[in-house]
């Protein structure tokens, strides 16, 4: 295959900050990589680690998670809870062998359209360099193979 690898990236973002930031990037007519599928959630506190696993299970090469800066949460402390959870989950993924480079976290406010566009671009570039998540896609393929005894 000579075509360049186009990574599939899933972004879980909070509606009050990062989604509004993405909106700003759009209305400011900033160009950024089209590899990201955004999923909007009420708060980063709503982002269960299961979402990340589900994204990988469905063949994502990378996952982004982004929300309000600490102190800016619409629900006052959803992002503080999320931050602790990520810290632990990140260590767990690393220990299991899922490279931390594939799951990225950031704070992007509603005013940071430029940061959003740059973040998407840089992560897409990083994951393109890493290449497809082959070890995981092998596991996914196994699930689709007919059962053998």
């Amino acid at each position: 295959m000579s075509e360049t690898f186009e990574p599939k990236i899933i972004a879980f973002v909070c509606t009050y900050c990062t989604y509004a930031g993405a909106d700003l990037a759009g209305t400011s007519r900033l160009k950024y990589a089209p590899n990201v599928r955004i999923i909007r959630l009420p708060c980063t506190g709503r982002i269960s680690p299961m979402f990340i696993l589900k994204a990988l299970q469905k063949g994502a090469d990378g996952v982004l998670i982004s929300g309000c800066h600490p102190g800016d949460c619409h629900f006052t402390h959803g992002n503080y809870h999320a931050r602790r959870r990520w810290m632990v989950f990140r260590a767990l993924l690393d220990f299991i062998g899922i490279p931390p480079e594939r799951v990225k976290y950031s704070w992007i406010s509603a005013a940071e359209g430029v940061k959003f566009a740059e973040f998407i671009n840089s992560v897409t570039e990083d994951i393109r360099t890493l290449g497809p998540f082959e070890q995981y896609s092998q596991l996914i393929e196994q699930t689709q193979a007919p059962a053998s005894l």
Partner: protein
Amino acid sequence: MSIEEQYRTRAKELLSGGAVKMVIGYGKGTTANRRRPLFISSPDEVERLVLDDVCITNLSGYLVSEGLLSDEKRVAVFLRPEGIRAINILAAESQLDADQIVIFGFDVNGNEVQALKGIHVEEFADVIGSIKEAAPEAAEEELFEKIEKMSPQERFSFWQEEFAKCIKCYACRQACPMCYCRRCIVDSNQPQWVNTSSHTLGNFEWNIVRAFHLSGRCVECGNCDRACPVNIPLRLINHRMAEEVLGAFDHFSGMSKTQEPVLASFKKDDSETFIL
């Protein structure tokens, strides 16, 4: 008088006086080096209690059996330090009232069984504090360090090989005193987060979720590891998680019955070096 004798006498007193309705301890197993949980509610049965260096199972999980403590009567239980920590966590998570639990504390040092002084969880604070100070190593320290030194790809292959053996019997969950959810995430099918068939992908997800739900709660009693019929070194993952919460949040699980659960609390200045 041996500790076994002392505890039998104490159990007899408590049961005949009606101070406790049941004693959960260890009885003879099928082979010489095995012990099985024993539940006795009559003072005549105390002779069946055994206490020696092969009493390793953490019995605290039986305390959250449905209806056991709902009559507000007391229950006595044989516990090692990890078991006592488990009581603290269960109390902190409002799963039981620690005042209802009468503890027969003991620890095993080499082949020697030592009694731990105290009846209620609060009295064991020093014992638990000294465990934290001692910074316990992983059960299989050599293998643990080997995994830590691997590259992510090697680690993935290592766990892939281990998890490929998993048959999704959920014995690890059943044996764990912390896995008390009435409805486990793997039993929920709308949405179905984890695949029910035991192919490696689903096994990965199940084991990741299990370890995550135990982060900052696991007391490393090893019940899951011993229950695993295919010998997946589950304790190593749990140990890595315990190390992480201790390093990042100075949280040592089961320090007291009022300790805040680590993933249900936060500090405004928690570390966030990894967030862009």
